[in-house]
């Protein structure tokens, strides 16, 4: 392998900024792609070079277009590509096309991506290596009759998952045989529509587990280590909202056991680069392999904060053929880190996406606070991409201190123009089950009667504001004291709401 001198960033948003930051530190040049949807995006200002892509009429976004990205990399003389997360990050064909064109793909081998990306294949490999797993079908399940037979063997409830799925989509829980036919057809149809592959498989559904994942680092010389775990049980619709490292549920013994298992899975597919092995942990502290993500994760910063290791730098070094200088015994977990995903979502409407333009933005800073973001005041959160505004990462000497620091940081954030997940996190930091660390993946759906925190004063003040507006509009002879829409742009969010009145 050769020295990496210029990287094409095949991604956008905060992860593009994150990668370019490390590349700059290492003296490596970067190329970012400007698209028609986000011509003024913040990530562009972090690149050494910008490729102008006229994709306004393109059928798929450029970040999903394998051949287009290869052509851009060649044209801009990049000798490496970093895919970030999402888009083509776990596409074996893209990694292979990079290899064909002598471009270094900053990630694992196409073979490892394929094996871990196809869930039935991954299950078979894990089974061969005696990795603990929830009982289930060995391969794909052809029809509902076969599904019923599997379920009878392993016992209800079961979960039907898309073979090519991931990211929490295309899953159905079946609690009794009479539901199977309907759920099987639904899951299969959804899988076909979402992933172009109708095949599904069946697993025992683990009730109320914790989601624990291990960060793996492997090099091309056969060294593989783990950097401890991340606790990701705070999820809605199987999408993570908050992650922390370490997990309040693990002790040294269980950590060593799960870490060793994660390394064993990675070794089974000859894994190199950064990767994540996801487990479910049940209430009896049994753990089950769920899947391996063959990319950098959204939540990687919490691991960086407690290990002091720059994971993007490690990815780049490994891709250049360098040997890991770290040994397992050198990995020390120090302190506690929590990450909140500040998304443009309406917590009061069940976390519905709330795209819009960020009018004002002020993010906290200081010791123990890290912000990873791809937006600034004036940026838009567009419906074509995900809803992330920023990742707020806060550390403390222990979990208790990290929670206190997070509570303060959440009160300092100032975002106007769209609704956000901030009220949810303000509630969460005050919630007894969160503070105790006993929550599971069903926490949001089952244990919460409301998704947001609001003090008793807030509604009264809001009522006062409404009354004040009414008096200014209807009762005062003069002009209103404060104008809410003159002298500033209407946000699309506001505008859409107004249009619906007509």
């Amino acid at each position: 392998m050769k020295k990496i001198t210029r990287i094409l960033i095949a991604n956008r948003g905060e992860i593009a900024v994150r990668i370019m930051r490390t590349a700059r530190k290492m003296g490596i040049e970067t190329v970012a792609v400007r698209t028609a949807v986000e011509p003024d995006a913040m990530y562009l200002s972090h690149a050494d070079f910008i490729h102008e892509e006229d994709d306004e009429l393109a059928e798929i976004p450029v970040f999903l277009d394998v051949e287009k990205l290869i052509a851009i990399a060649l044209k801009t003389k990049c000798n490496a590509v970093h895919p970030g997360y999402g888009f083509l990050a776990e596409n074996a064909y893209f990694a292979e096309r990079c290899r064909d064109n002598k471009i270094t793909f900053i990630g694992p081998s196409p073979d490892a991506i394929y094996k871990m990306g196809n869930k039935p294949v991954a299950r078979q490999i894990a089974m061969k290596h005696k990795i603990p797993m929830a009982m289930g079908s060995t391969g794909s399940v052809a029809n509902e009759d076969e599904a019923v037979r599997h379920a009878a063997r392993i016992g209800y409830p079961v979960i039907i998952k898309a073979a090519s799925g991931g990211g929490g989509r295309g899953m159905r829980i079946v609690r009794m045989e009479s539901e199977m036919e309907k759920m099987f057809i639904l899951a299969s149809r959804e899988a076909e529509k979402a992933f172009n592959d109708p095949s599904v498989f069946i697993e025992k559904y683990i009730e109320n587990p914790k989601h624990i994942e291990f960060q793996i680092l492997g090099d091309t010389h056969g060294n593989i280590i783990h950097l401890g775990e991340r606790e990701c049980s705070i999820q809605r619709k199987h999408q993570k909202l908050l992650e922390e490292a370490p997990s309040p549920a693990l002790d040294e013994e269980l950590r060593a056991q799960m870490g060793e298992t994660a390394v064993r899975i990675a070794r089974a597919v000859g894994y190199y680069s950064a990767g994540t092995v996801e487990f479910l942990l049940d209430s009896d502290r049994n753990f089950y392999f769920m899947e391996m993500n063959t990319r950098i994760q959204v939540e990687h910063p919490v691991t960086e904060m407690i290990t002091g290791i720059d994971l993007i730098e490690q990815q780049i070094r490994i891709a250049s053929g360098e040997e890991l200088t770290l040994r397992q015994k050198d990995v020390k977990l120090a302190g506690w880190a929590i990450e909140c995903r500040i998304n443009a979502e309406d917590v009061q409407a069940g976390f519905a996406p709330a795209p819009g333009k960020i009018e004002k933005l002020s993010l906290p800073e200081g010791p123990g606070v890290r912000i990873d973001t791809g937006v600034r005041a004036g940026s838009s959160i567009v419906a074509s991409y995900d809803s992330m505004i920023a990742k707020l990462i806060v550390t403390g000497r222990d979990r208790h201190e990290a929670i206190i620091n997070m509570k303060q940081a959440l009160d300092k954030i100032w975002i106007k123009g769209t609704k956000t997940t901030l009220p949810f996190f303000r509630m969460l930091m005050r919630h007894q089950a969160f503070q105790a660390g006993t929550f599971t993946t069903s926490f949001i759906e089952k244990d919460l009667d409301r998704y947001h925190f609001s003090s008793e004063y807030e509604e009264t003040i809001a009522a006062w504001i409404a009354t004040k507006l009414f008096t200014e509009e209807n009762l005062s002879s003069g002009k209103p004291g404060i104008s809410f829409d003159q002298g500033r742009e209407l946000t699309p969010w506001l505008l859409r709401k107004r249009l619906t009145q007509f």
Partner: protein
Amino acid sequence: MTPEKPAIKKLYALSNEGRKFAFSLPLKNVVRVNGRDYSVELREDEKYGVHVLWKNRRYPVEIVRTKQNRYEILFNDISHTFTVETPVSMQRKKALGTAREKSTTLIVRAPMPGRIIDVLVREGAEVVRGEALVILEAMKMQNEIQSVVSGTVVRIGVRSGQNVMKDDILAEIKVR
């Protein structure tokens, strides 16, 4: 309002959940909570935009007026909806409220722009409260749009694969 009319002495803000907040006119920069008065100020500046100053802290405020006397107030990132009534309109509302009939069909609208992944019910189908009607994929998430009432599906407004805008009609349900 014309100046000849008798001066209004009081206004009421009624929340969506039916809570009533009374304010004396002329409106002072004071809010009473648990029997104590606190000063409150509405301000605007370049850095923070419109905000409220309350106990030496700034809170973000955004206003979405949805109807003549109906206000959606986004205060500290949480939205609250009120109708503001005068003593006279309050009386009228009460009188109307008792006579008003409940609407018998429910229109289900898209809560966000996205793509219809699947339509799970047919016209004429009986659905129960909480039953999924369509699956809408938006911003990398599949969202089950559920019926909030039990009833009969009288109309389906979308088909699988179709892109929808926010507030497009997905289905119409006759309440049982």
